[in-house]
C-alpha cells in the first residue's frame, strides 16, 4: 500500500519535472530559432518557399471555410436581427464577428491542422531519416537552414490567411444576406463601414493572427524537432501539434480579447 502510494508520488514528481524540463527546452529552442533567423531574411527565397507550402497551399481550405462560415453567419444573424427589426445591421454583425474573432481563430485552427501537422511530420521524418544529422555533419546549422525559414514562413502567412478568411466570410454573408434573402445592399455595406474601426477591430484582429501564427508554427516546429525518430514518435508528435496548438490558440484568444476589448 505504502509502496504504491510512494510510486504514485514519484510518478507525479517525475511528470512535473519532465514537463518543466520540456518547457525549458522549448524556450531554448524558440530562442535559438530567433537568434538563427538571419539566413531566413538574407536568403529570402528560403522563406518564400515556406510561405508557399504553409500559406499558398492552405488557401483552398481557408477560402472555402471562410465562405461557409460567412454564409452561416448571414443566415443565423438575419434570423435573430429580423426579430428586432434591425436586419440592416447584418453587415456589421458579420464583419465584426469575422474580423475580431472568427477570422483569426478559425484560420489559426485550420492552419494548425493543415500546415502545422505537415511541418511537424516533415521535420520529424527529416530527423528520423538522419537528414538533420547529415546537415549538421555538413557544417550547416539545421535550425538556421530548415527550422527558421519555416517559422517565418508560418508567421508571415498566418495574418494573410486570416485576412483572406475574413474577406471571404464577409462575401459569404453578403451572398446569403443581400443576394439570397434580400437585405438592402447599401445598408449592408454602409453600416459595416461605419461600425468597423480600423485600429480597434481590424488591427487587433491582425495582431491576434500574428500571435497565433507565432504560437502554432513554434509548437509545430518544436514537436517535429523533438519527436523520437520512429514512426510512432512522429505520429504522436503530429497529433500533439494539432492538440497543443489548437488549445494554445483558444487560450491566447481569450487573453488577447480580454486585453484588447475590455482593457483589463
Amino acid at each position, binding site marked *: 500500500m505504502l509502496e504504491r502510494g510512494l510510486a504514485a508520488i514519484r510518478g507525479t514528481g517525475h511528470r512535473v519535472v519532465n514537463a518543466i524540463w520540456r518547457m525549458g527546452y522549448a524556450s531554448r529552442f524558440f530562442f535559438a530559432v530567433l537568434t538563427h533567423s538571419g539566413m531566413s531574411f538574407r536568403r529570402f527565397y528560403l522563406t518564400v518557399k515556406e510561405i508557399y507550402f504553409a500559406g499558398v497551399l492552405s488557401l483552398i481550405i481557408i477560402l472555402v471555410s471562410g465562405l461557409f462560415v460567412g454564409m452561416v453567419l448571414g443566415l443565423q444573424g438575419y434570423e435573430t436581427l429580423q426579430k428586432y427589426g434591425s436586419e440592416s445591421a447584418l453587415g456589421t454583425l458579420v464583419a465584426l464577428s469575422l474580423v475580431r474573432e472568427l477570422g483569426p481563430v478559425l484560420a489559426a485552427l485550420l492552419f494548425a491542422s493543415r500546415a502545422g501537422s505537415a511541418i511537424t511530420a516533415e521535420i520529424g521524418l527529416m530527423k528520423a*531519416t*538522419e*537528414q538533420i*544529422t*547529415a546537415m*549538421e*555533419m*555538413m*557544417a*550547416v*546549422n539545421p535550425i538556421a*537552414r530548415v527550422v527558421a525559414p519555416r517559422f517565418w514562413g508560418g508567421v508571415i502567412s498566418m495574418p494573410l490567411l486570416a485576412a483572406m478568411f475574413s474577406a471571404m466570410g464577409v462575401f459569404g454573408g453578403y451572398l446569403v444576406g443581400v443576394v439570397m434573402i434580400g437585405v438592402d445592399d447599401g445598408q449592408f455595406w454602409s453600416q459595416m463601414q461605419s461600425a468597423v474601426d480600423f485600429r480597434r477591430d481590424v488591427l487587433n484582429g491582425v495582431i491576434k493572427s500574428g500571435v497565433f501564427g507565432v504560437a502554432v508554427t513554434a509548437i509545430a516546429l518544436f514537436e517535429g524537432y523533438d519527436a523520437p525518430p520512429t514512426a510512432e514518435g512522429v505520429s504522436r508528435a503530429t497529433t500533439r501539434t494539432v492538440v497543443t496548438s489548437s488549445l494554445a490558440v483558444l487560450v491566447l484568444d481569450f487573453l488577447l480579447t480580454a486585453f484588447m476589448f475590455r482593457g483589463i
Partner: protein
Amino acid sequence: MPSENLVEIRDLNFTYDVRPVLQGINMDIPRGKVVAIMGLSGCGKTTLLRLIGGQLKPSQGAAKVAGQTVHELDSDALYRMRRRMGMLFQFGALFTDISVFDNVAFQMREHTDLPESLIRDLVLLKLEAVGLRGAHDLMPAELSGGMARRVALARAIALDPMLIMYDEPFAGLDTISLGVIGNLIRHLNDALGATSIVVTHDIQESLKIVDYVYFMSEGRVIAQGTPAEIRAVDTGFVRQFVHGEIDGPMPFHYPGATYAADLALEAVHA
C-alpha cells in the same frame, strides 16, 4: 610536420546515461589509408563515428582529428572542421525534397560563392565519379538503395574532404551494389588523397578494400591488424565473426533463465 595519423583516439570512454558504450578505446587512423571498424550491431561502432564527428562528447579521453581535440572545439571551429569531413550515412540520408543534383550541390552552395555554372560542372564531375551523372535530374525517391548510397557518396565528397566516414555503407545492398560501393570507397580515397573510416559488419566485402581493421566487441577494441592478419586469426570471437559461425564466444542464446525454468518444468519434476 603534421602527424602521420589523421585521427588519433586515446583512452576514449563514452557512457549513455549509466550504460558504458565505449571503454578505453585507442586507435590510430593513418593519413591516406582506409581503416575498417568492425563488430556486431550495437557494439558502439556508430557511437565512435559520432564522437569523431563531434556530435557526441566523450565521458573521458579524446578523439583528435588533424591534431585538434574534437570535443574541445567551439561550435564555429567544429563547423570549420566538419567542412573538411564527409560522412556517408547508413541509408544515405539524402534530402528528399530536392533532386540528386541539388543534393550534391548542397554543400557547395552553402559554403562557397562559386558561380552556378562552375557548381554544375563540379556536381557532374562528382556524379560521374560514382557513375550517376545520367541520374542528376531524378528525385531521391526514384533511386534504388544502391544508387541512393552512391549519390550520398558523391555528396559526401562534394568539397573534397580530408576525412571520409562511412556508417555501414554495405547494409541492405545486393551483391553487385556491394562490389560497386566497395570499389568506390577505395578508389575515391586514393584519388582524393583522403583518409577513410569504414564502420561495418560486412566482413568479406570490407576485407577486400581496407588497409587495416579494428575489431570491437561490447565497447572495447579486442583485435586489430591488416586484413591478412585478421583472416589468419583462428581463435575466439574474431574467428566466429570472420567465418560467420552461429555459436562461439558470442552465444546464440540471449542470456536469461534456463529454458526448463521458463517452461515451469522444474516445478513439475519437484
